[in-house]
């Protein structure tokens, strides 16, 4: 079952002082797949990402990566180095670093202590960062301290950082939040070309956005899968309408 899958959640559960946030959740992400996850507030989407990225340890269940590694046995750094990158729901950047340095630190590189101590900036790193700055439209803020960015600017910066990491699997929690509709479309486009070469799991509440992605959708509810399929399929599902879309 796990074979051939990139990420395999095998009935994972976690509860916080009594409250079951994730309940026997199972899910498979195939290599190169982009998957949209929707679901009511509090369904457990972010918690799921916490579990995958090693922030939260599940009470039971395994999270198998690339059919072999059990992520629940590793810590955040290790998991990140396996090629799993994440954008947080609440944008978090290094506030006292410039936009530029934020991206520089995010770049894929040997993250061990001594290599970092002696590494010098290289030409292609430069160019890569410039690309990213252009892409996220932060070009003229490159020397600004990230702490003084607006909410949406932080969103963009964090997306940029995620791309800089160039992970195999991207976990993106509510990228469109706090973006104008136009920017939201941009983001959708962006994610689609990323998906050419990467696997992506994206959480959103913006249905237009989800639609424009046009990918398989999983609906979480009370910590487990409520429905799965194309957006039209799940939107047709009565329960989904009831608990999530509303009338």
């Amino acid at each position: 079952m796990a074979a051939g899958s990139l990420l395999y959640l095998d009935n994972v559960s976690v509860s916080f002082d009594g409250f079951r946030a994730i309940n026997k959740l199972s899910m498979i992400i195939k290599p190169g797949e982009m998957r949209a996850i929707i679901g009511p507030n509090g369904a457990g989407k972010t918690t799921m990402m916490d579990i995958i990225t090693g922030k939260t340890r599940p009470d039971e269940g395994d999270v198998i990566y690339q059919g072999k590694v059990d992520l629940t046995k590793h810590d955040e750094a290790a998991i990140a180095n396996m090629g799993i990158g994440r954008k947080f729901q609440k944008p978090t950047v290094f506030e006292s670093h410039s936009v530029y340095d934020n991206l520089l630190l995010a770049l894929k590189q040997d993250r061990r202590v001594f290599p970092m101590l002696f590494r010098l900036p290289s030409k292609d790193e430069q160019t890569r960062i410039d690309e990213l700055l252009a892409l996220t439209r932060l070009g003229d803020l490159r020397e600004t301290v990230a702490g003084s960015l607006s909410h949406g600017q932080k969103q963009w910066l964090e997306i940029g950082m995620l791309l800089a990491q160039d992970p195999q699997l991207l976990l993106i929690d509510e990228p469109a939040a706090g973006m104008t509709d136009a920017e939201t479309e941009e983001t959708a486009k962006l994610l689609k070309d990323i998906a050419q070469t990467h696997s992506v799991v994206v959480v959103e509440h913006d249905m237009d956005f989800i639609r424009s992605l046009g990918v398989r959708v999983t609906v979480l509810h009370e910590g487990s899968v409520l429905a799965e399929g194309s957006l039209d399929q799940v939107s047709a599902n009565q329960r989904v309408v009831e608990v999530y879309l509303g009338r």
Partner: protein
Amino acid sequence: MTGRATVITLGLILGAAVLVPVLNALPDGSPFKVPTYTVSLFGKYLCYALLALAVDLVWGYCGILSLGHGAFFALGGYAMGMYLMRQIGDRGVYGHPVLPDFMVFLNWKELPWYWYGFDNFAFAMLMVALVPGILAFAFGWFAFRSRVTGVYLSIITQAMTYALLLAFFRNDMGFGGNNGLTDFRDLLGFDLRSDGVRRGLFIASALALALGYIACRFVTTSRLGKVLIAVRDAESRSRFMGYRVEHYKVFVFTLSAVLAGIAGALYVPQVGIINPGEFAPINSIEIVIWVALGGRGYLFGAIFGALAVNIAKSYFTVAFPEIWLFFLGALFVLTTLFLPKGCAGLLSILKFPGLGTGMGFARKKEAGND
């Protein structure tokens, strides 16, 4: 971007390293003569400055508020002290060939194993770096791996130095109890009391400080330095980015401890005594105070703070022996109120914009101006 600060700082240190000894060498009565008293006094300050530098490295750049750095300083000092003790040889008051006086009159029979080798200068100097280094490494390894952060870390570092304080107070420990190690004679065969050696020690301290500064500078401006600041601001975020936070912390913590140890080693022959008082929690707090006053997150700020506070202290204790604490207390309060980011902060705003770690520019949740 801060090349200027570096050049100026190094210039001043090295200038002093040359000038002070030369002026001290002048014949008595010459108007420019710097008395030996001043030489060893400033030699002492330079050691404090190096110590402050070490603290700023972990606190200012990696957000580790260590309230136990006095311990590393003291351990380096004790390593040096033990060497100097052994140098006394049979010139102790009881004329015992091997045992230091305090062991003799507590009628110890032979040298404890951990005193072996300290008659050898090279070995002793190795220990000056190794002992604090290893302690810091072990301590840091466990603490950072179990993700002890913030005040919790501060407090256990304080507990560490406090425990060492009590331990070293005990005569049975074999380090001279609270009288510590004193009555030193000579270093590498040179008489510690000669002005020559004093100048030598001063120069050594200045060079150590300069090298320490360069080292810290290299670390903080390297890409690793950026990671440290990232860790300071958003530890867990840097984890999710794949940085092994604990390794980075252990690295700087150990490096900083070694610097502190070296400072201690240079300090001891200049003040002529090392005793458990150096482990007192309050001392470690004072070091932090120097850094805070000088400007946390600015290397030259740390140096400035150490010098400023200690010069002020030396002056006040003579000028106003009865009430000098008022002045020192006021100095601290006023600094926090009028120089939010320490003296260096002021300089950086005036002269070197964008200098240091950009701390406090960040938009803070607390910053609501109510």
